[in-house]
């Protein structure tokens, strides 16, 4: 028995080692197995879509895809997405771009319109990359109309239609009423005052160029002033910043002097070009004002930082000053330093009042009607918005309508 027992002990001992060995091997094996099972294969971007970019001038294809799960976890080293493109699906695809992580969209702006393209997107992981299925063929093309800017088209047509409509009515002789602007009477007073004092008149367009609409309005006002100065035989000084506007101004003054029956008084040297430098021009105009001491000064046009420098000098020499500009940032300075200021559109109305030609009258009336229409639309939308905010429980459609109308005005 004992022998037998003794005989069995080594066998059991051996079996124990075998068991331990097996357990050890299995434990190592099992410890390895979870790594293989838990580690998921690198996932590729799904739902890849490719289409021509709408409302553009061509040469752009938009790619969209769903971002991979690893892209939603911060700090895992996920890099981003590489974009591959080929002209035939059997060709080698070339890398044409890269989208940063978190981005599920890419615009390929290097395409040729009308040409077929195939794409795939590859998600780039630290340990490798996973490519999506390819998509295609897709072509880019230019659109004739940018439908996202339909609102701009509608408003442009509306305003142009109204202006042309009123110009035609004015041409047919219909009397279109324009109310008088306060600063207009002051023009005659200022010219008369300069004449009585035996001093010249100074007119400046500021830094306007001929392409500024405000410069065109200023030319009409200059025409009126030139005519008066010719009648009163008062010297008119027009220092210029823009050489092309200077040419137009000389033409205008010459015409006005001729109309007043005094073409002999016209002297182009009184309308010199100073410089096309902002503060150089300001220094020059200041110098002219100090030496010539004009009795009346007209600041009509577009002005920048030089506005206060020049109008303060005009104030210091005791000139009556009449300003008119659409430069919102400079209007406060003119209001503070000048006797009369025509604010923004008042200048256009003034030029129209002085020179009531059908084109100018029609433009102003058309603009006024456009303003009235816009104001009406504006009031209606605000009422809908207010009602929507107050009655959002009982009448939820008001909020939806307001949001739709609000978004319609967005310019893309």
């Amino acid at each position, binding site marked *: 028995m004992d022998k037998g027992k003794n005989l069995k002990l080594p066998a059991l001992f051996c079996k124990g080692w075998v068991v331990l060995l097996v357990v050890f091997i299995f434990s190592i094996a099992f410890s390895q197995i979870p790594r293989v099972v838990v580690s998921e294969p690198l996932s590729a971007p799904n739902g890849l879509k490719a289409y021509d970019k709408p409302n553009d001038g061509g040469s752009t294809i938009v790619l969209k895809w769903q971002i991979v799960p690893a892209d939603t976890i911060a700090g895992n080293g996920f890099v981003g997405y590489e974009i591959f493109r080929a002209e035939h699906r059997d060709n080698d695809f070339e890398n044409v771009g890269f989208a940063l992580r978190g981005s599920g969209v890419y615009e390929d702006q290097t395409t040729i319109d009308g040409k077929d393209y195939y794409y795939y997107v590859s998600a780039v992981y630290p340990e490798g990359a996973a490519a999506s299925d390819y998509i295609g063929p897709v072509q880019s093309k230019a659109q004739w109309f940018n439908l996202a800017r339909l609102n*701009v088209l509608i408003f442009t047509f509306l305003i142009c239609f109204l202006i042309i409509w009123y110009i035609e009515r004015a041409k047919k002789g219909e009397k279109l009423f324009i109310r008088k602007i306060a600063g207009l009477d002051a023009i005659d007073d200022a010219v008369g005052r300069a004449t009585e004092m035996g001093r010249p008149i100074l007119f400046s367009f500021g830094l306007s160029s001929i392409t500024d609409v405000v410069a065109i309005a200023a030319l009409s006002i200059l025409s009126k002033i030139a005519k008066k100065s010719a009648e009163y035989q008062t010297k008119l000084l027009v220092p210029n910043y823009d050489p092309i506007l200077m040419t137009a101004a000389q033409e205008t003054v010459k015409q006005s002097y001729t109309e007043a029956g005094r073409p002999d008084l016209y002297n182009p040297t009184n309308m010199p070009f100073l410089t096309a430098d902002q503060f150089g021009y300001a220094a020059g105009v200041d110098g002219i004002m100090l030496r010539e001491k004009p009795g009346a000064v007209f600041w009509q046009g577009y002005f920048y930082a030089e506005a206060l420098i020049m109008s303060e000098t005009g104030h210091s020499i005791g000139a009556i000053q009449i300003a008119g500009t659409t430069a919102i940032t400079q209007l406060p300075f003119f209001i503070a330093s000048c006797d009369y200021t025509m604010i923004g559109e008042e200048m256009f109305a003034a030029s129209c009042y002085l020179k009531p030609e059908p084109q100018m009258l029609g433009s102003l009336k058309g603009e006024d009607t456009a303003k009235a229409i816009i104001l009406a639309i504006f009031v209606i939308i605000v009422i809908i918005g207010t009602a929507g905010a107050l009655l959002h429980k009982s009448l939820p459609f008001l909020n939806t309508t307001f949001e739709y109308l609000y978004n319609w005005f967005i310019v893309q």
Partner: protein
Amino acid sequence: MIWNIIGTWIAAGLTLAIFSFLYKDNPFYKFAEHLYVGVSAGFGVIYVWAFDLKPMLVDRFVAEQGIERWILLIPAILGILMFSRWIGKIGYLSRLPISFTVGIGAGLGITASIQGFLLPQIQATLLPLTTINNILLVVGVITTILYFYFSREFKGKSSYLLKLGIVFIMVSFGASFGYTVMARISLLIGRIFFLLSDWLHLI
């Protein structure tokens, strides 16, 4: 180094000459003014040649081929026509480039204004009247637009709308005035800093 010192002294002297205008017109100001006007006019000529005419007309005419080359003759001819003013009989031709420029400016201005100003401003003021701010904004916009409505004479009670509009305009101008004055003071500080630091080395 010596040229830097000379340059600083010239700049400081001209700055003081321009500032002397605050006292009254004087020969120093006159000198600085004429120098400034002359130099800036001369610089303007060089600038136009170096950054407009040469790269955009001369160089491109040499470099381009085909129709893109010959199309450059159109602006060149329009530019040359401006000089016709010096020749009495054909002086009227100078009106062509002027009208061309005015037409382009006006045409581009229409869509640019509607797209850049009109529609964004309408959208920004479409607000429900649920707060004091919104009410002020909407009332301010309506009365200000009415102030610039010229086709009707506002008399009696309706004239109060215009008066309210001008109040809003003046408040906004007041704010703009203060804001710009602060910006101008920073320019003055810059000039005084140049005098005290670069020139006199006091700070």
